[in-house]
Structure formats: structure tokens, C-alpha cells
């Protein structure tokens, strides 16, 4: 493995911490009133400028992010068809939600997708990056090929894979058929549909993670590997005792990002299977979509969205806590 100088820097973190002006931390004598007034005046002007610069962002966020969030929260306590005035129904939407047996199915399926994603989608880019980091020739080509699926629009990629999975004339069954395997039903069976979705999602989303792992791997000092080698460590021990510990923070970060991303899975089940067969790929987001746009139950959709936001906020809190501890370690 190649050794490259350590490139990690602690500088960027300072950008995230609030900066204080030198005057504010000065221990010197307090200036008399005129300079104070001048400084106060300058400060007020600066504040005004800062606020004016903030106005566009505040407006955009307010109109397109915060207001819809507040509106959606209100909607979860209302019944409306979006045409006539909304009626306040208290917690009824939440009650109806918990009475719906599909909710448990959707939560179970989503967790199953997350689990399969962790099992298959999470180690795959790490392994691939480890292999690619040893390649000396044509590394750029491999990186390009691995990243290519990320560039393909998701729906196009899914439609392509839909053909791969076609049980009659699909690519996978044709290839497997030549070695005497199959035909497999892939998306057409409750047992394999979710797995099929995860395989495509892994292929489609792996590129970014591979590049991040590669970047992290080249920043591991070569001396560590050399020292381990001198101590008689084989390839497996070098990976286990040198590479993985050095990648700890990146692995943890990508793990949490993947968790949050996979909980929100929608495009794959929507385009591949529509939630079928027999609700085997019905996820939480797909259920929200059905409530709102199929059944016209906007209140119920908002209620489930609200619950999902709560769950994701919890996950995000874990994420923030974890990243804080890494930055200080």
C-alpha cells in the first residue's frame, strides 16, 4: 500500500466554532466612552449588514423549509381535502394511523431494508475501496467506473435494473441460466424482492462511499503498515489492526449517514415494485405517499411524517453526539 503524507487538518473545525473579535477577549483597559460609542455604532452597522445578508437565506428557508414543516405539523391534527377549510381533529389522525395494520408492515420492511443495507451495502464499498487502494495501474478508470452509477439518474438506473431482474428475459436470469441456475423470481417474490432492491441501491450509491474510503485510506501513514509488517503482521492483521482503526471515524460517519438515508428509502420500492409483492417492499415513505396522494388522507400522511421526523431527529442526535466525541478524540 502506498504511503502518503497525512493531510488531515484541524483547521476546518475552527470555522464551525463562533469566532469572537480580538477586542472581546482583550484583557487590556476598557476604552473611554467615545471609542465605545464608535465601536457600538460600528457593531450595530455590522449587525445590520449581517442581518441584511441573512435575509435572503432566511426568506428561502422560511418559505421553502420551515413554513412547510410547521404547516405539515398543523396538518397532522387536521382533516382536509386541500379545497375546503381544514377541520381540527386532534389526535384522530394518529389513532387511525396506529389502527392501520400496514404501519407495522411498513416499519418492519423499512427496518429490514436498513438491516440488509448494513449487511450488504455498508461493507461493500469498504471492501472495494481496500481492493482499489492496492491497484497501481488504471486506478482512475476503476474510480470512474465505481462512481458512474451515482451520475445516472436514480429512476433510469432502477428501470435498467428492472430489466436485469426480469424473470423471463432479464440479464441476471440469462447469465445464471447459462451455468444452470434459476430462473429466479427476483422482484416477483416476497422472499427476494427486498434483497433485490438493496442490491440495486448498493450498486447505485456505492460510488460516493468508495471515494471517501479511498481518500481516508491514502491518508493512513505508510510507516504504520511497515511497522506492522516488520512485527510479522500478515495482510489480515494489517487490515484489522492498522487500517480499520485508522478509518474508525470515517466508518462511523458513513454508517450513520447510511442509516439516515436508508430509513428514508422511497424511490426503489416505488419504481421497482410499487410496494409489492403482497406489501413485501412497502416502506414508511411509500406508505406516507399512499396516504397523501392515493387516498387523499393528507392529515394521516402528515402525522406519519411527523412521527418519522421524530425518529430521525433521535437518530440525528446520536449522530451529532458521536461526531462530537470523534472530533475531540
Amino acid at each position, binding site marked *: 500500500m502506498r504511503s502518503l503524507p497525512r493531510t488531515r487538518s484541524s483547521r476546518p473545525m475552527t470555522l464551525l466554532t463562533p469566532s469572537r473579535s480580538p477586542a472581546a477577549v482583550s484583557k487590556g483597559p476598557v476604552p473611554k466612552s467615545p471609542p465605545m460609542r464608535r465601536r457600538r455604532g460600528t457593531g450595530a452597522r455590522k449587525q445590520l*449588514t449581517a442581518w441584511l445578508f441573512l435575509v435572503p437565506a432566511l*426568506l428561502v428557508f422560511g418559505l421553502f423549509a420551515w413554513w412547510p414543516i410547521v404547516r405539515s405539523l398543523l396538518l397532522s391534527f387536521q382533516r382536509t381535502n386541500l*379545497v375546503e377549510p381544514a377541520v381540527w381533529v386532534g389526535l384522530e389522525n394518529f389513532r*387511525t394511523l396506529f*389502527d392501520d395494520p400496514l404501519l407495522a408492515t411498513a416499519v418492519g420492511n423499512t427496518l429490514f431494508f436498513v438491516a440488509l443495507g448494513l449487511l450488504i451495502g455498508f461493507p461493500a464499498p469498504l471492501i472495494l475501496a481496500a481492493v482499489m487502494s492496492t491497484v497501481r495501474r488504471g486506478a482512475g478508470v476503476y474510480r470512474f467506473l465505481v462512481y458512474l452509477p451515482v451520475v445516472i439518474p436514480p429512476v433510469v438506473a432502477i428501470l435498467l435494473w428492472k430489466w436485469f431482474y*426480469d424473470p423471463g428475459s432479464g440479464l441476471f436470469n440469462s447469465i445464471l441460466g447459462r451455468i444452470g441456475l434459476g430462473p429466479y423470481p427476483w422482484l*416477483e417474490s416476497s422472499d427476494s424482492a427486498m434483497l433485490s432492491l438493496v442490491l440495486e441501491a448498493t450498486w447505485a450509491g456505492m460510488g460516493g462511499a468508495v471515494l471517501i474510503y479511498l481518500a481516508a485510506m491514502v491518508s493512513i501513514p505508510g510507516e504504520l503498515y511497515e511497522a506492522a509488517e516488520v512485527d510479522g503482521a500478515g495482510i489480515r492483521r494489517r487490515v484489522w489492526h492498522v487500517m480499520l482503526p485508522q478509518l474508525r471515524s470515517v466508518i462511523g460517519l458513513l454508517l450513520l449517514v447510511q442509516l439516515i438515508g436508508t430509513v428514508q428509502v422511497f424511490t426503489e420500492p416505488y419504481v421497482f415494485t410499487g410496494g409489492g*409483492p403482497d406489501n413485501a417492499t412497502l416502506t414508511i415513505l411509500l406508505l406516507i405517499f399512499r396516504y397523501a396522494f392515493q387516498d387523499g388522507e393528507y392529515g394521516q400522511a402528515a402525522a406519519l411524517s411527523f412521527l418519522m421526523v421524530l425518529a430521525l431527529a433521535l437518530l440525528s442526535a446520536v449522530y451529532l453526539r458521536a461526531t462530537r466525541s470523534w472530533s475531540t478524540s
Partner: protein
Amino acid sequence: MPRNFRYAAISGSIALTATLAGCSSLTPTSAETSGDLVVRVQGMPPATDKPGLALFKKQVADFEKAHPGIKVKGSTTVFDPLTFSAKLSGGNVEDVIKVPLTEPQRLIRQKQVQPITGQLKEWEHFKEFNPQVLQQLTDDGGEVYGVPQNPYAQGLVYNRELFEQAGLDPDKPPATWEEVRSAAQRISEKTGKAGFVHESKDNQGGWQLTMLSYAFGGELQKQENGKYTATLTGEPTKKALRLLKDMRWKDDSLGRTLLVNQNDVIKQFAAGQVGMFMGSPGTYRLAKMQFGMENTDAFGAAPMPQSGGDATLTGGDIYMVPKSADKKHAAAAVEWLTFAYAKPQYSTEIAAAQAKALSADPKSAVGVPTLPVFGQKRQTEINAAIKPYVNVKLDHFKPYIGGLATLELKPEPPYQAQKLYTALDPVVQAVLTKRDADIDSLLAAAEKDVNAQLAADQK
């Protein structure tokens, strides 16, 4: 420099505020600059349908000539139930919408469309509308909400060529579901293609199971004391599902691709990969014009095969006026509906002129049989008037036309049909994808779920 920054910030904020404020003016309004009332209507054919578009433009010109002060602005937008409510709420919907027959009852119930009875009644032939067709556009109080176009009854669409290859007589399509089963098995064995395909997703699995259940004598909904409940566990529905299960797991005649919607099926049929499916003669247009079916002579249509029900489901396109149209626009919209859709389906002269214009393009489909919009006598006269311009092989629709008279034409389940279909989709999928699917318990669970939803909606 700080001053420059401040100026930059101020100008930036003003520009953005102005842009955002301007967003409201992006909403299409029917503000008329020339003093004319502009009515925006769906139903304009896309540019690829040249004869259809030319006919539409001529209709618009004729209408505007006959109705000074009203301008019609056509839209190729297709009704999308997923975005309709949001568009309606934002005032972005046209003054006339075109929807499939599966939608009117839901839109009426959700009060997203407005009644047009009063104005429509002023048309002298209003009373001659086929009541069976109009019934599905009417609320409990008798108010009518739309004008139908090309109504149809579901039947059996089949590939005559595959029938011949399998040694079956294409002029004698299956009349019972037992015959469908054996024909499907034979097609599958002899040609390697799917003998029969049943839709199974996007609520179309439930929709097709409904028509199949009707053919077995089933009813999927009943009304008691003014409340609707789903009746999914009836024996006819179970029989229908048992038939599908046997065709899938005993005969293996349903092909390999089982998770399909209507477009998937018609696409496969147009490519000659499917022997039979439940559909209307109107699917001929989709197969030919949308999915490029070249061998259109292979298209055959039969009435819905029966196994004790003697009934079939109806369908069609409906033109409606959404709630968002104000009084003036709604009145002009109804004028347009009467002029563009009611009259041409009643008047032999207009129907013949339209058929002549359409037949100029070989890619068009003129003469596809429909249900009578105004009674059988009037339909016979219309058929005679357009006969010289018909470019579909009417012989291949003969079994359909001949067998239709004996069937009861049934509407969709009247209350929340889509919720029934949503509940039935997974049942159909389970039967098609799980060898050990327990039909009784699947239906019982679906009925329980959907009845809980219906009860909540009717509180």
C-alpha cells in the same frame, strides 16, 4: 467597503423578495387581456397525434366562432390523481379536466368537482344520455358532474395470431373462465408466451379482480342503512382467485412477469408476448398508437368470459369541471363540454366529419367500438355514418359487440373504490407470487382492513 457590502446585501434582499413575491404571479390565472373569457381545457391531443390535434384545433376555432367572447386554451396535461389535489389547492387546474371513469365518484365525494346539471339540462338531448353511463357521474342527490366520452365495457382482449399458432379458433374466443384457462394453458405450451396476464399493481390488481369477480357473480361492496361496507370474502371472489392460483401454480400459463400494471400488459401484448388479458376495445388505440403494435390484425376483442355472473365492469373518459373554476368559467366550460363532446357523440354529421378527418392518418384508430352514449338506436346511426372511414378491422371486434347485449354493465364499487383496490392489490400479488397463499385468510384480512377505513371515513 462596508457600505458596499450593505448595498449589496440590501439589493440582494430586495431582489430576492421581489422574486419570491413574483412567484404568486406565476400561477396561471384566467386573466383575460383582451376582454375575452379564457377557458383552459384538458383533452388536447399531443403533437404526436397529428390528426387528433388538427381536429381539436378545428373544434376550438368553430367553438370560438359560435361563442364570441370565449377563448379556449387547450392543454395536453393528463389528469394525475397524485398531484391533482395539490394543483387544485394552488389554483393551477384547468377549467375542464379529463379523467378515467375510476375517478368521478372519488372526486364528487371529495367535493373537488362541481355539478353541471342545471346548464347541461338546457341542451335539448340531455334526457337521451344512456342512464347506465350517466349513473357513474351522478351523486346521491341526482346531480350530474360530467360528460362521458367513448364509454366501454371490459372484455377479453386476445392475440388472434397466437390463438392460431396454438391451434385455437380466433373467431371463437373463450366464453367461460374454464375455457380461458384451457386456452391460456394451450397458448403457453405451444408458443412459450404468457397465455393470460392479470394486472397486479398500482391498484390495477384490485381493479381487475373486481371485474373478474363480477364475471363470477360477485359484489365487492354493499350499502346498509346508508353506510357502505366491503364484501371481499364472497364465494365468487374466492373462486376468481382460485382460478388465478391454479393458472399460476398448476398450469404455469401466466408468464414470468407477474408484477405488472395496465401499461406493462398492453406493451407486452403489442409486442406479441401475451395471449389474453382483461381489457376494453379501447386498448387497441393504446397498443397501436402508444406502444407501436405493428400487427394490428392480430388484435381481437371478446366480451368478458362468464362463470355465473353475466356481468362486466364499465369504463371510459369523463370530462368534468373542477371546483376551482369560478361561475363564469364554469358556465363557459360546460358550453365547451356540450359542444366538443356531447354533440359530436349525438350528431351523425359531426361524428362522420370527425371520423373522416381522423382517418386521413393511417396511424389513427377510427371505429373502435364503444358503448352507446345515447342509446343503441342513436349508436347504430352513428356507426352507419362513420362506416366509410373506419380503419380498424371490425370483424375482429365482432365477438365483443355480439356478446355485449347479454351482459349486465356494472359500475365500480360506488364508495372509495380505490381503497378497495389498494387492499386487493396485495391479495392478487400474494396469489400470483406465493404457492401456499391462503385465499380465505388473505381476503378476510383485506376486508377487515378496508372496512375499518370505510367506517372511519363514514363517521
